């Protein structure tokens, strides 16, 4: 189970796009009547809208005819569902065994030193989110991090610091 997290973010103004339910309704319709649809629907809706905010969860509930609290039961159980906005870059620091014995804890420290965020947190400018994950399957290159979909391996803490700075300065977007 994911660590206990405050489920609902502080009240936020929603943009018109965030309240445009076209995509949400289409996804729900695709699964109409299907068994075991809750998780795939939430996954797809989250992909489309970024994260699962309150109004969105309520909309999914209405569509699937499931109460919001049942949905939140599922959402809070799984680490891959997010009820708060996330940064432009999601830094996944592998805290799997192989990476742990090769010092990945220090890399999380570097993230904290640079951006002031701990596991599960996003910086105020919403550039970085830190997620500590278990084995991402590249143990041969331990310690390993992923920034969005890109994997970086064989890192020292200082090399990781440089990579984070490159992302922060936009150098990695090229």
């Amino acid at each position, binding site marked *: 189970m994911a660590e206990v997290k405050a489920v609902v973010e502080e009240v936020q103004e929603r943009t018109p796009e965030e309240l445009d339910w076209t995509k949400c309704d289409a996804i729900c319709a695709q699964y109409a009547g299907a068994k075991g649809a*809750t998780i795939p629907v939430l996954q797809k809706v989250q992909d489309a809208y970024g994260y699962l905010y309150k109004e969105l969860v309520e909309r999914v509930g209405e569509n699937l005819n499931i109460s919001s609290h049942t949905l939140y039961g599922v959402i809070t159980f799984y*680490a891959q569902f997010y009820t708060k906005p996330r940064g432009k870059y999601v830094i996944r620091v592998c805290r*799997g*065994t192989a990476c742990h014995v090769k010092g990945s804890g220090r890399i999380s420290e570097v993230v904290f030193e640079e951006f002031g965020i701990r596991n599960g947190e996003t910086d105020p400018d919403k550039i970085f989110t830190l997620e500590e994950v278990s*084995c991402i399957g590249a143990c*041969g290159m331990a310690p390993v991090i992923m920034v969005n*979909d890109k994997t970086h391996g064989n890192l020292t*803490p200082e090399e990781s610091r440089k990579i984070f700075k490159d992302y922060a300065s936009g150098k990695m977007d090229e």
Partner: protein
Amino acid sequence: MSEYKVEQIEVHVCMGTAGVASGGEAVMAALNSEFEKRGLTNTDVKERNCKAKQTGCRGLCARDVLIDVYVPGKGPVTYEHVTAEMVPSIVEEHIVGGEVVTKWAAKKDYFEFYDKQKRYVLNDCGKVDPDSLEDYIAHGGYDALKKTLKMTSEEVIDEVKKSGLRGRGGGGFPTGLKWTFCRNSPGDLKYLICNADEGDPGAFMDRSIIEGNPHAVIEGMLIAAYAIGCKEGYIYCRAEYPLAIKRVKKALVDAEKAGYLGDNVLGSGFEFHLKLKEGAGAFVCGEETALIASIEGERGMPRSRPPFPAVKGLWQKPSNVNNVETFANLPVIILNGADWYANIGTEKSKGTKIFALSGKVKSTGLIEVPMGITVRELIFEVGGGIPKKRKFKAVQLGGPSGGCLTEAHLDTKIDYDSLIAAGAMMGSGGVVVLDETNCMVNVAQFFLTFTQRESCGKCIPCRVGTKTMLDILDRITAGKGKEGDIERLEALANDIKISSLCGLGQTAPNPILTTIRYFRDEYEAHIYKQKCPARECPELIEFVVVDERCKKCGICKKVCPVDAITWEKGQYAYIDKAKCVKCRECIVNCPFNSID
């Protein structure tokens, strides 16, 4: 490894997770553009027809990007750490000129990694293109299915029973026997589920199989479905494995189009539909009843048994769950026969097992070895021993449910029963080698942090007990351990083991119990002497250079990120404690263990 013959020049590029991360795509692109530029894409002339092909993980990921150059009539030549910049020279000298570029070619230590391995299940990983059904078929793919369809379902079950195959998901339950339970359950609709939730935090066997050879898993599932009588199936894959998900999705579409899946598999009248389900990030969903709950769209909490899934599983229908590697063994067994298979391994553990070898060994990676190989052979021959001239301390087997073994156990045979007798377990196949700089209390704390976080919370002993144990370990590693803590841990551990519902809680205390059993003195040093003998727990390290051991090399000064170390040529190093942030870089990098 069986031979792979080519009709034309082929260059295989590792595009497993590490291959891609190390720049595999750029190497692939460089090869293609180089072939183009030199007119080496002429399909009419064999010598001038070169193909770059992606393959899956071959296990030695630390050397990626790995490529193999196959020239017809010659054995393959492997290159390590290939970059796009190296490609023109390799094409020029090797492919056009016929001279191997020896300075980049793999050396003895590469081959030693494979010497003691027996790669049957992984044989095609690293050789076939995982995105190509045609390539799989060209290498004998789906032949086992064709053979199966000519047998009766009883014959298939008998064959699997005779092979001695036991589940590779951790428990080691005999596969053929498991199938009969589901087969004998009344009902028309039965489900077959492939457990690809691989959550052990240091293991990636299942991921490599799926990424490297997804059709082998589908073929194995078809064989099982035919034997049990399942019409529908699911592959439940961890969401953290995007590449595996992508490849299995494509494989499912291709297999269905070609008639290997569907209402009438290869015209035999046998019906099997297979879908992919993505997990959502919860370790406990690897437990089969929790996995079933998750497919149903619920919170993935384990359910009490009976009823067993074989009687009432997914949507109350009889269901059979097996692990990825278990399924991937089936084509091998059917093609080569049960007798051949049962010849490999020990009396009660047959065949091979795939392990993820990591930690303090020279060659980390994914290996497939015959059951019965010793721990020593695994670490010192396949893995090449401990790097940096350090001493072997322990090996942790079976991940968060497993235990550790010491020097005294190096000759233990790796099979289900010998490992349990020695206090560890096969588990899913994670092998973490630890050297003298690894603290065993820290290792226990690491695994418990994981299980505590992943406990689903249903059982109080597991939910609260693991937290209480973790609090104790946290205070021991912080230098605040109290007299009686070791005994408290032991008592809690035993209570949690007997009163938890599922395997997570039942096995969570194992890493603690075995580290206490074999390294009690290390716990005592933390508690009573405020010392971490391995110098891993920052609160218990003094961070002083011991002049008697310091060889004045100055390496510590170079690695210190905050300039806390003063050193001049010919002088002892000195640490300014006011500046030191306790990062341990100096300790890890000092070649003479001179910092206490």
